[in-house]
């Protein structure tokens, strides 16, 4: 029965095209604001002009790796074309992959890349050269590793193809999860970056809006008379509340997924694991706020009462929970913030995003949010029984 209640709510939600459109448009609009404020902050970007005289597998791999970097766009040029561009200062630097590059790399013999540049290559040219150098050195290291392992296993009965496959898989794993992760921090500021704090803040604020959804769902059912009718069926108050809770949480998550996906895709604030962990934390927040919404819904008699109570509650949580500013670790503001679920949610999300902590390390936050959800649901059910049925 709770599932039927939740499905009904979702069906009504989908059928109400205005509400559906608004719930999709709002996260997109919010994301657009975020992108406008922080989208350009990320960083350096430049075009790497490359002349491939080798054309072998390693040369192509180098070009492909460079092209996959966010900062670099590869433009391949013919030798004469690159020379002409350098001559007329259309470019300041070109990377030349010499003939025999791939063969040398396979044999382990050193084979330099050639950076042709005007003067020092300019600031941009030097940065591009640094990036190309780093990628080439990594490839060189990988080639040396491959050569060493193949030599070491050449006398054994292990198939060469198996060894190469194992090496390739290991190197790919290291590329996906590098043992050293670089975290950028401003000088004199050891706190998470503005983006790392603001993304969780805005996400939590958005999830907080679903307090209104939870509050309104009961009031609306009461207004159209279906609530009283439901109470004459075999649906218990507990099942009713679980159903309402599920639907409010699912609707909140729908919007959170849109916002989070856009933020990760466009602002590149983290990897897939970070995304999944933030999504899991969003579920905890959605559960807590949906349950609080039901407390308001159980008490409110009119839609206006429900909406205003939800808005005031959301504002309090948002402002004092540290959505827009750091409340610090001590002082009255920090004490006040500890009374908000927003603080626990933002702290946990920020820790995942900027400090590289895992979901398993967010026990306090998850416990606080889960506890709020359980306690609020219990209170909402008890209040409803008293106010609605006089029991």
């Amino acid at each position, binding site marked *: 029965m709770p599932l039927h209640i939740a499905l009904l709510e979702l069906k009504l939600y989908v059928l109400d095209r205005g509400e559906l459109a608004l719930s999709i448009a709002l996260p997109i609009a919010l994301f657009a604001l975020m992108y406008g404020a922080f989208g350009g902050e990320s960083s350096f970007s430049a075009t790497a002009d490359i002349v491939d005289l080798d054309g072998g597998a390693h040369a192509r791999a180098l070009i492909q790796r460079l092209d996959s970097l966010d900062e670099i766009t590869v433009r391949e040029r013919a030798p004469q074309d690159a020379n002409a561009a350098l001559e007329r200062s259309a470019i300041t630097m070109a990377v030349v992959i010499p003939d025999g590059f791939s063969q040398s790399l396979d044999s382990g013999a050193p084979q330099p890349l050639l950076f042709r540049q005007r003067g020092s290559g300019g600031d941009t040219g030097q940065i591009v050269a640094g990036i190309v150098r780093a990628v080439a050195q990594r490839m060189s290291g990988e080639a040396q590793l491959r050569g060493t392992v193949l030599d070491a296993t050449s006398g054994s009965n292990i198939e060469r193809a198996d060894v190469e496959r194992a090496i390739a898989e290991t190197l790919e794993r290291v590329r996906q999860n590098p043992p050293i992760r670089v975290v950028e921090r401003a000088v004199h500021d050891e706190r998470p970056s503005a983006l790392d704090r603001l993304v969780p803040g805005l996400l939590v604020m958005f999830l907080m809006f679903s307090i209104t959804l939870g509050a309104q769902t009961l009031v609306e059912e009461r207004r159209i008379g279906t609530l009283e*009718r439901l109470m004459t069926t075999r649906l218990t108050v507990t099942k009713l509340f679980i159903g309402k809770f599920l639907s409010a949480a699912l609707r909140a998550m729908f919007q959170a997924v849109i916002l989070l996906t856009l933020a990760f895709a466009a602002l590149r604030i983290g990897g897939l694991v970070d995304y999944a962990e933030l999504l899991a934390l969003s579920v905890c927040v959605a559960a807590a706020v949906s349950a609080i919404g039901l407390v308001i819904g159980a008490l409110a008699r009119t839609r206006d009462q429900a909406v205003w109570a939800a808005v005031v509650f959301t504002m309090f949580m948002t402002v004092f929970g540290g959505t827009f500013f750091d409340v610090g670790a001590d002082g009255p503001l920090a004490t006040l913030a500890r009374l908000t679920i927003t603080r626990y949610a933002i702290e946990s999300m920020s820790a995942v995003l900027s400090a590289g902590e895992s979901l398993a390390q967010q026990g306090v936050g998850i416990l606080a949010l889960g506890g709020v959800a359980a306690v609020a649901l219990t209170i909402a059910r008890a209040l409803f029984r008293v106010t609605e*049925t006089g029991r």
Partner: protein
Amino acid sequence: MTAAQDFLTASSLHKAFDGAQAVDGVSFTIRQGEIFGLLGPNGAGKTTTIRMLSTVLQADAGDVTIGGFSVGRQGDEVRRLIGVCPQELALYPELSASDNMIFFGRMAGLSGREAKAAARQNLETVGLADRAKDKVDKFSGGMKRRVNIAIALMNRPRMLFLDEPTVGIDPQSRNHIFETVESLRDGGMTVLYTTHYMEEADRLCDRIGIMDHGRLISLGAPRELKARIGDPDQVTLESVFLDLTGRSLRD
């Protein structure tokens, strides 16, 4: 009359809201298979009484048994026996008639297949089988009222509560509802019916209870009530009602 023939027994029901006594010691019985009319001016306590009888509201004092089960202590058993058609159109306007009925059928404990079959059958009963897939939002007032009744029949109840089921509808729809209620009674269903239309109560009800100021002030068959103030062939039920409850305006 033996106790076994009484399907509903209300004993000394009391309910107060903010110190104001809405229902004040109401007692009556409803026999199995009869249509019992509960009449009274606005604010007399009819709807509060129905809410207590139908397990929605807990009485401050007194008890109700329906089909041998106590409303206060055996609510779930009582809810298996009753169907409630509230005064408001308790429908989801965005859903079709059929979807509304299937949903409430599931809430009444029917399986998906049972709910679909019951929805088909009850829509036929109220003459809306051909509009099953249409959104309730597009229905006329009379059609909505009929869906409202059809939903109350989803769990094949033994007792039906109809709280002003004919408010604001045309004579054709009203007549259709009368015929439906009479055929349900003929099938053995017990019905509690409230209305402000006296001729409606006169036509349908086997017995009538008149409430005012939270008390049951008169009870009997329509003809008995009329005989108390004059010739039952000349006196109307409206005259009885006004004689008992006065002519001053109510809320």
